[in-house]
């Protein structure tokens, strides 16, 4: 966790000197505005995804379908609100109640997560493959729900999930931090965290010591689905529309990247939720800084690629061994 924190601090320090007004905050209409708030607000969906992804990766898996789940959930909620004619979802009697719409949408997200979980834990599919399935078919399902259209809606109550604020702080930030806090408590105050790490570091040993690895895996994929669902709701509420093609596109990669940068090993075992959160913030700070400097946003993609290779190299035992060997050679 130390390296990403230092990198984040370095970028912020750079902004302090070279990006004018990066740290200025102001209150307008009872809501905080400023680059810093903007960074956290924009990072909120990836923060949410990375919370679920951390748990999944800690069990030795990976979930490639979170972007597609975001699209499905976005399509579901938009169809429930806008009620386009001929929609498959018209039959669900949610009326205009926002809690009911959110509940149904998150229910769909839970089903997606459970689908992944069942394939991984009960059919012993490789996680990459199992979740690839929903990644391929998921966008098709989302387009089926929206009938290939971009569903636009007007519902100030629902839209506030994306653009509203509580106590001056944007709601997406509350949701991301809330989910992070909840999972942090669950994994550190209950046995869940220990069990997840046990399953990830040695599945056979954990099975022998009486941990039900199947249930744990099912649970983490379900949690990951819910996280993706909330991220999908935020994304849809933010643009007040559901775009089955582009909602959450490539965000699964950002989430995996955040987890990798945060210091959770891709091989499973020990995990750090706080690290993943820093990873997500680091990437968004980088993107915002690049944008503020007037450099083409495409540079962000190239930089992300370099960062992920660098972080993975530093985590690799082979690289560390070679590096230490060289140091020892230099000293001797």
């Amino acid at each position, binding site marked *: 966790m130390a390296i990403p924190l230092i990198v984040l601090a370095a970028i912020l320090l750079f902004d302090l000197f070279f990006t004018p007004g990066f740290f200025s905050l102001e209150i307008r209409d009872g809501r905080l505005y400023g680059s810093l708030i903007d960074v956290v607000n924009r990072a909120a969906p990836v923060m949410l995804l990375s919370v679920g992804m951390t748990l999944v990766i800690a069990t030795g898996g990976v979930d490639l379908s979170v972007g597609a789940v975001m699209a499905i959930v976005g399509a579901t909620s938009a169809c429930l609100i806008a009620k386009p004619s001929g929609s498959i979802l018209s039959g669900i009697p949610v009326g205009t109640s926002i809690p009911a719409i959110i509940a149904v949408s998150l229910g769909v997200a839970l089903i997606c997560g459970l689908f992944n979980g069942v394939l991984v834990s009960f059919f012993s599919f490789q996680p990459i493959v*199992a979740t690839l399935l929903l990644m*391929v078919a998921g966008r098709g399902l989302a*387009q*089926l729900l929206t009938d*290939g259209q971009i569903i636009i809606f007007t519902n100030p109550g629902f839209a506030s999930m994306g653009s509203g604020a509580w106590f001056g702080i944007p709601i997406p930030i509350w949701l991301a931090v809330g989910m992070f806090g909840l999972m942090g408590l669950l994994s550190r105050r209950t046995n869940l965290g220990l069990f997840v790490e046990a399953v990830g570091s040695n599945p056979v040993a954990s099975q022998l010591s009486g941990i039900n690895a199947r249930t744990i895996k099912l649970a983490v994929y379900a949690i990951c689905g819910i996280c993706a669902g909330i991220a999908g709701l935020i994304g849809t509420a933010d643009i007040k529309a559901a775009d089955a093609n582009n909602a959450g596109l490539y965000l699964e990669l950002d989430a995996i990247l955040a987890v990798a940068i945060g210091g959770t090993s891709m091989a499973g075992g020990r995990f750090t939720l706080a690290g993943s959160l820093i990873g997500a913030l680091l990437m968004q700070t980088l993107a915002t800084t690049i944008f503020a400097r007037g450099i083409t946003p*495409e540079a962000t*993609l190239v930089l992300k690629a370099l960062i992920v*290779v660098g972080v993975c190299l530093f985590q690799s035992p*082979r690289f560390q061994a070679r590096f230490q060997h060289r140091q020892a050679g230099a000293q001797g």
Partner: protein
Amino acid sequence: MKRLITRERLPILATSIVCLGLYLLSGFNFEGFFSLRVAFNFLTDNAFLGIIAVGLTFVILTGGIDLSVGAMVGLSGILVAFLVDSKHWNPIAAMAIALGCGAVLGLMHGYLIAKFELAPFLVTLAGLFLCRGLALWISKASIQIKDPLMTDMASFHVGLPGGASLSLSSILFIAVLLIAIYASRQTTFGRAVFAIGGGKQSAVLMGLRVPQTLILVYMLSGVCSALGGIVFAIYTSSGNAIGGTGMELDAIAAVVVGGTLLSGGYGSILGTFLGVLILAIIQTAITFQGTLSSWWTKIAIGTLLLIFMLMQRGIVKATERTTA
């Protein structure tokens, strides 16, 4: 012994049956589906996907994965279009540069994966970002290719009886396919690929040059995807930085449906060819049907993928039971 061989051939048998079944089903339902022209269009319309899937098969046979192939299609397409149309390069030189890019990217992937044992999907994920970033850097707008040599290539075809024709891209696809089948079955390289997928540790103990083979495999996939990008650029007569988005998934689907195990060690290039044909038939049938929307393709591919994976799972379990 004989039964075991049958079991090993089960995936490709199932793939052939599904392929034939889908073809006959579509043929009897849609008028004109059985024509030679439609059959050869399977090749022309999916040549780029086929070339990519062939390269990817080698990677998957070693137990790895390459997520960067779709982004490489975008990069090599926009690179060729940019060099040829904006910089007035000779198209052949531009294509050579694009293929070189693919080889260099593959070399980087292979080196990181073989020498530092990084997870293939993470390394190639970084490759995906790198390619998309570079491609968008070259040009965000799509570039139309107006070079006479390139347009000649696009319209070049060998006429066949029955109104069918073999386009340049399908000839390239068939050539790549034949070379790959030869390389996978008749060379030491091919045997090393299967051995690594079957068990890396034992491959090392057998004295095989594992790192070199891995690097070569990822370079092969890089070159194939760059070639796929060139074919895609010729096919669409333009280069587009976001071209090939999601193509990595189609390619993986084709490989898996073709009977190659994603855990490595078992599979065939011929199976991948059948996998590409199955995707092509589904796509064409949905176009012929007319009222079904394009997203049904994705759902159909996903469902097919699920069925094949369940079947593979069953075969692996059954084999385990026999050996135990």
